């Protein structure tokens, strides 16, 4: 279970998260929607431990463990995964080597045996097939020269292989064509189960037709200003944010 209480965070003296409360129980998928610049990506970065943010107040725990006190790789080993809004290119780092190093780092941290090259390849091929990804993607450098949609698919592939207990998907749907959207949504739905929870950040109600959330939250000005069921996304689509924000103020 992800539990965030009264989280305040700033970057370069600019306050971005301003008393954010959020609970995602294990096994549930929650969506976060909100206007540009509201702080959605900032939340995902603060949770996953990117440098440069200063948490001035509040807590964030995953299954009772303090996330904010540990290094990003330790958070990943606990089961946290972030699908980046803008996946990073790694020239000179082969995708297969990257994926296997990541899987084995987490397996080591959890006291599991490491995968050899062949075992890895078998697993990767299965997941890539589900995502309609060409095997050749393994030989290429991580995200280098990938199209926008290919980068997003590569994020979902990482999620499928790393099997997190909490996945944060930051606009994984943007830049995807209609078929890809369905494939990626199927990829997320395949992970759903009693031990998996997700925080899906999106601007589009359409994604939530495929990944039906248990709860929808509206993030504005650094806090959750309203929460509801899937119908809240439809309301936002119809009325826009202004009305919701005004009503909450």
């Amino acid at each position, binding site marked *: 279970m992800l539990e965030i209480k009264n989280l305040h965070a700033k970057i370069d003296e600019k306050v971005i998260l301003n008393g954010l409360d959020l609970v995602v129980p294990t096994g549930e998928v929650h969506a976060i929607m909100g206007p540009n610049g509201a702080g959605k990506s900032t939340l995902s970065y603060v949770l996953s431990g990117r440098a440069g943010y200063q948490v001035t107040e509040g807590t964030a725990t995953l299954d009772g463990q303090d996330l904010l006190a540990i290094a990003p790789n330790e958070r990943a080993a606990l089961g946290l995964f972030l699908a980046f809004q803008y996946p990073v290119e*790694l020239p000179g780092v082969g995708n297969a080597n990257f994926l296997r190093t990541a899987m084995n780092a987490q397996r080591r941290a959890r006291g599991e045996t490491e995968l050899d090259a062949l075992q890895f390849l078998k697993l990767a091929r299965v997941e890539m097939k589900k995502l309609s990804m060409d095997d050749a993607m393994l030989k290429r450098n991580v995200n280098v020269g990938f199209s926008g949609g290919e980068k997003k698919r590569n994020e979902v592939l990482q999620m499928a292989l790393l099997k997190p207990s909490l996945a944060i998907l930051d606009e994984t749907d943007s830049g995807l064509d209609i078929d890809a959207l369905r494939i990626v949504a199927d990829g997320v739905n395949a992970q759903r189960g009693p031990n998996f929870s997700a925080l899906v950040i999106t601007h589009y109600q359409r994604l939530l037709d495929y990944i039906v959330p248990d709860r929808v939250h509206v993030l504005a000005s650094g806090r959750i200003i309203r929460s509801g069921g899937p119908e809240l996304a439809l309301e936002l689509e119809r009325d826009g944010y202004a009305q919701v924000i005004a009503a909450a103020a």
Partner: protein
Amino acid sequence: MQAATASFLARFAGLKFRLPGDLAVREAACAQLIQDGLPTRALEAWKYTSLKPLAEITFAEALSDVSALDPAHLPGFFSLLPDLDLPRLVFLDGRYRADLSVLPEAGRVGQFALQPRFGARVGPLDLLNTMLAEDGVLIEIPADVDAGTVLLISLAQDTKGRPIAFHPRHRITLGDGARLELMEIAVGQGVYLHNPVYDINVGDGAQFTHLRLQDESRQAFHLASLHATLGARAIYDSFTLGLGGALARAEMQVVLGGEFGMAHLNAAQLLGGTQHGDFTTCVRHQAKHCGSRQTVKNVLAGSSRGVFQGRIEVARGADKTDGFQMNQALLLSPDAEMDSKPELQIFADDVKCSHGATVGALDEDQLFYLQSRGIDLATARSMLVRAFLAEALSQITLAPASESVIRAFLDARIETAFGGIAL
């Protein structure tokens, strides 16, 4: 730098009647050295590299009983060599060891000590070598012979408080259409000076692949001068990997003397602590349609210093020259420093020459991306450093038979170097 030469001149005075070859040539080199001294930073070509630390050491002769030394007394050295059943020419403290060597089947291999011959080389370190050279390898590949892969190994043992200097004189000649792949490995322990000079001739249509792994002791001095002359359609494909030495410099002078010749002078340096590594090149395009390619990568940790000086000279009439040079440095610490000096001197028309240089640190976003996948910071850093080096390492073209072993060997040496410099 008179002080620095004094100890070498004294050695020459003591040794000269025992040295092989034409004494007059050595006396001339000696006279020139007395006049010029060792280079100082006042010289443009030595602007970034000071030989002062050399002046503080008095070098003794190589141990006289070296030829009797049992290889069993060289623990560790042989584990530093690739696990390949290849011909090998082994030098210990600068002297050829026939008992440790395995000759190649093709080509002629000789010893400078037995057939001393000097090329006319006039650089200050060439002169030092000419004055004191005792041994070296002579490799001659006849026309149209493919000699395969040969290892050239230089071992220096720890002489414990009695630093030695050795000045091997190597001559490598490929006849027209000949081929040779030479992999050099220089390793050692303790303080010493390794001052090799190479005279390289690549005949028309010949191909010389020259891989140099400089992995000397971290207290050693490595000052190498290479002179290569290429015929028409000849290829000189060299790669220098500089990991060792307290002070190391490799200076390569290449003359493209026939049409359609091609020279690759690629390099990577990986330095930490107070190491100083200098890669200096001069390519002289003297004929039409020749190419030169240089990708030089420097990874600098601690307060290490990297130097790259790359000069491209295109003579009048050397039209259709195609020169490319790229030097990049990754600074892993605020105290590390890179000095880079490209120089283009072009007297021909219709020439394509480009050069570029970048200096930067590891990318924070890339580091975070790796860490967010569960990879610890140290591993993430080493992955990105490897990625940075990958472009240079991919330039090495090796014979398929030994390629994978040699690449694995280089990887392992790089990994060890990473451990030594605390990325």
